[in-house]
């Protein structure tokens, strides 16, 4: 995964995160940059996960009401962990990725709340129910993202194939 692609993924996730809740209330519970970081880690490995997490987390901090660096730290760890998981285990199936996204949500929440507790700045409160709901929402988005990532190239290839066949028939007619 190249740097421009990492930046594009992070930018798209942030744009969606800061826009979607205005149109859909439920979208406020989803952490799209987190999903993007986990997927970057799973597809690109620990280094890609690390950098995506750093970029995504810092950008998220800049656009939120929290302390700068908290999400950067949390997401760097999450990205690296996701990358490590992809190296150690087979994580191609959608459900496995969903489980990893769910676990990453819990870890991210623990990290963010933990850091805020350490820096004695008022931060988010951790309610297991809320975090679990967020984890489920992120995992659902993860499943959809996996399906899209898997089927988009296939559909594109099929469409190209159909176009090519049609062109061939026109020429030979």
């Amino acid at each position, binding site marked *: 995964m190249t740097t421009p692609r990492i930046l594009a993924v992070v930018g798209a996730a942030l744009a969606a995160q*800061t826009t979607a*809740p*205005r149109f859909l209330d439920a979208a406020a519970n989803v952490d799209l940059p987190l999903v993007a970081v986990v997927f970057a880690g799973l597809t690109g490995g620990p280094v890609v996960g690390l950098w995506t997490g750093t970029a995504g987390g810092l*950008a998220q901090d800049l*656009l939120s*009401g929290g302390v700068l660096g908290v999400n950067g730290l949390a997401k760097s760890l999450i990205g690296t962990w996701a990358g490590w998981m992809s190296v150690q285990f087979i994580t191609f199936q959608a459900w496995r990725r969903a489980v990893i996204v769910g676990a990453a949500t819990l870890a991210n929440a623990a990290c963010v709340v933990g850091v805020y507790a350490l820096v004695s700045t008022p931060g988010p*409160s951790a309610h297991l129910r809320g975090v679990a709901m967020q984890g489920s929402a992120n995992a659902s988005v993860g499943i959809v993202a996996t399906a899209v990532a898997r089927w988009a190239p296939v559909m594109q290839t099929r469409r190209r194939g159909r176009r090519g066949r049609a062109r061939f028939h026109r020429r030979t007619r």
Partner: protein
Amino acid sequence: MRLVLPAVLVGHILLISTQVGIRPGTTLLESAVFGTLAGAQGLVDRAGAGIRDTVSMVVGLREAQRENEALRADYDALRMRLQEQRALTHRTTVLVGLRELRRSLRWRTVSARVIGTDATPYFRTLTVDRGASDDVQPDHAVLSPSGVVGRIVGPPSRSAAKVQLLNDRNAGAGASIERTGTTGVVAGTDEASALQMRYVSTASPVVVGDVVLTTGDDGIYPPGLLIGTVAAAEHAGGPSQTIRIAPAVDFSKLQHVLIVVPARGAEADTSLISGGSR
């Protein structure tokens, strides 16, 4: 054969038509041709009318949209005026001196468009398109025609600022119940659609539906602004009760807000209601 038969039939009809009149002075051919042309004319007319109707509908829709926007702006301005009138009434009823009253209403507001929500699910903030170049500074109150929205947090950039919503867990505002004058602190909860009023004495009866206003004690929000209405009251057993408040503002549907900025000398007086807004 496929072409010959129709051609022959048409030829026959033409032949007959030249001889048979259906009305004095009118032949069947004339009638048929006229009927066909009239049909075509009718089709063209209907199509033209359809296009004309569609175009006029589109133009009408645009006009209606413009009119709607103008009316909405008027409506918002009137609601804002209503809030200010409410604030004025509140202050008058508590017999604050005229000078103090005028000072409390010396607002100059800049309107801002909401351009983004918080990038994390943990905080409730908005980003607006006004910043330091518009005199927006941290702790400036942010309002909407419906009521209090929040305050500016963090250093604003030249053209953007972050707004901490009143329903953020870390937000707070000095508040009082309009009917009784009982004071407390309104803060956000885990639920985005509810606020909590703390430190309200159990000696003061609170009724569902009571209006909650800002006190101005926090030094951020001007006094008398609408926060919401009491939805429920809980007695935890201590000396104070916790009150659940339904906010007057739907924080998830905010598109435009007003930021209260310091008045600029004399023009502040005229900017009270609409002059200062842009």
